[in-house]
């Protein structure tokens, strides 16, 4: 798909009805900002009649996004969280169908969500804190001082891979397999991760086989607190189909992987771009608490979530028809200056920093949000203990080709001790 046309247009003069914010290239080039600014101002509930994924509505203002996200009866998630319909079902005969509870409506959604919730509760994740902290220390201790290296593989990917292995109790030495599967499951041909849909479907098949075997292993052993053991032993999960089980494992792995990884990378970039905030943080490490949600707002790791209207409904003066696709652009709502003061700036001590859209709202609100916050908090607590003068971004930032995950692929840095 050649889409360079979209990113070359002048965002101010393009006729409003031609604006299509679904082009992955926009996010790879970080070129989406002026388009959303214009939509929020001129056409906050915006209809795009023709895109690579067909017609869809864009919801771009903070308040409207909260309204859609918290109204699951009218805005259904069923098969609708991605604009690209083909992603759940796969593209070939061999495909592993992915329909996690993220993409379900009540009552089935609630039933499955309740199975994994205990593992993510504040009390349970507190048990992981010491392990995570030790691993963060080990990774930071290895970093070169004064020499350039890429923060993404060395720190962000490494730490999230270890975290995933802990969550599902997977052999630590094989952790990069988990990362590969996560990357593949959200991959699109041409993004540098996969070359074809056939390749994606084949790799995910191996994933499914591996995790079905793991479930049998866990069933044969006494229950522990890892997620696979939970799914293997929970009485409510006994009648879970193979498809549901596999879908939920991939949901937990993807959910916990890219989002946290990119928040880690994004925090380094944000502090490089806002040296005054780095100074504030160094003077007062207690600001980590309000900085963590600000990092997650500023990065907005998931660019949008999709829904489908179950009936005709009016929103922002527009009539959305039953069956229409609707995208809630968190990336836009998080920069809506009507809802958030100086929304374009990264401010680590803003009042009520937790009021952002990055975790979504309503019944699908991110179940891993406390775990993600804990990882970022520990990372920053340990970085500050190092007493480094600064972490400088030394080269060009490379971003992911995706309209779904706001990814940082490469971030060259140098630590000044």
């Amino acid at each position, binding site marked *: 798909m050649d889409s360079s046309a979209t990113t070359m247009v002048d965002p101010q003069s393009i006729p409003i009805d031609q604006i299509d914010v679904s082009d992955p290239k926009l996010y790879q080039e970080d070129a989406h900002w002026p388009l959303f600014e214009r939509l929020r101002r001129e056409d906050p509930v915006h209809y795009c009649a023709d895109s690579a994924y067909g017609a869809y509505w864009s919801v771009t203002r903070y308040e409207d996004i909260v309204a859609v996200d918290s109204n699951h009866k009218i805005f259904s998630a069923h098969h609708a969280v991605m604009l690209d319909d083909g992603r759940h079902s796969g593209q070939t005969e061999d495909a592993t169908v992915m329909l996690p509870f993220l993409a379900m409506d009540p009552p089935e959604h609630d039933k499955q969500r309740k199975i994994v*919730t205990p593992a993510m509760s*504040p*009390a349970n994740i507190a048990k992981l804190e010491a392990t995570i902290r030790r691993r963060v220390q080990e990774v930071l201790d290895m970093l070169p001082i004064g020499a350039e290296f890429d923060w993404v593989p060395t720190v962000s990917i490494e730490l999230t891979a270890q975290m995933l292995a802990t969550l599902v109790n997977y052999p630590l030495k094989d952790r990069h397999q988990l990362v590969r599967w996560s990357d593949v499951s959200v991959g699109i041909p041409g993004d540098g991760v996969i070359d074809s849909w056939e390749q994606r479907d084949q790799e995910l098949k191996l994933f499914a086989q591996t995790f079905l075997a793991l479930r049998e292993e866990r069933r044969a052993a006494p229950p522990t607190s890892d997620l696979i053991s939970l799914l293997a032993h929970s009485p409510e999960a006994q009648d879970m189909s193979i498809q549901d089980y596999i879908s939920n494992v991939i949901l937990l792995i993807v959910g916990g992987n890219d989002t946290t990884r990119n928040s880690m990378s994004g925090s380094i970039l944000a502090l490089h771009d806002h040296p005054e905030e780095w100074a504030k943080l160094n003077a007062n490490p207690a600001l980590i608490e309000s900085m963590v949600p600000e990092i997650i707002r500023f990065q907005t790791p998931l660019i949008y979530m999709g829904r489908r209207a179950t009936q005709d409904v009016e929103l922002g003066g527009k009539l959305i028809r039953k069956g229409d696709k609707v995208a809630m652009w968190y990336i836009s709502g998080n920069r809506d200056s009507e809802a958030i003061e100086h929304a374009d700036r990264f401010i680590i001590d803003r009042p*009520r920093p*937790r009021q952002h859209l990055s975790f979504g*709202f309503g019944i699908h*609100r991110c179940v891993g949000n*406390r775990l993600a916050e804990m990882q970022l908090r520990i990372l920053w607590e340990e970085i500050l203990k190092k007493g480094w003068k600064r972490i400088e971004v030394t080269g060009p930032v490379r971003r992911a080709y995706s309209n779904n995950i706001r990814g940082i692929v490469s971030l060259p840095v140098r630590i000044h001790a």
Partner: protein
Amino acid sequence: MPKIRFVQQGTEYAVEAPDGISAMEAALNAGVPGIDGDCGGQCACATCHVYVDPAWMPVVGPADADTEQLMIDLNEGVQANSRLACQVQLTDEMNGLLLLVPDAQF
């Protein structure tokens, strides 16, 4: 101006609040720890979960079954006296109300 009490991890916080605002707003304005209120009171995040002192349940009343209860049910540590503080509108009748705040929101 009802005066209400929050108890979090054994510490009591007495808060005087204008009637009409929610218990979530009252807690945030007074800096009571343990209530996050991430959605700003839209009944969409459940990070303002509190337990109403059972003696006060008749005054405060139950959660709305169609909206608030759905969000409460997805939380951890749910009890019959669970409410979302943003959906509890303070009135003069609630003078002396006692709300127990969980150790951490989810």
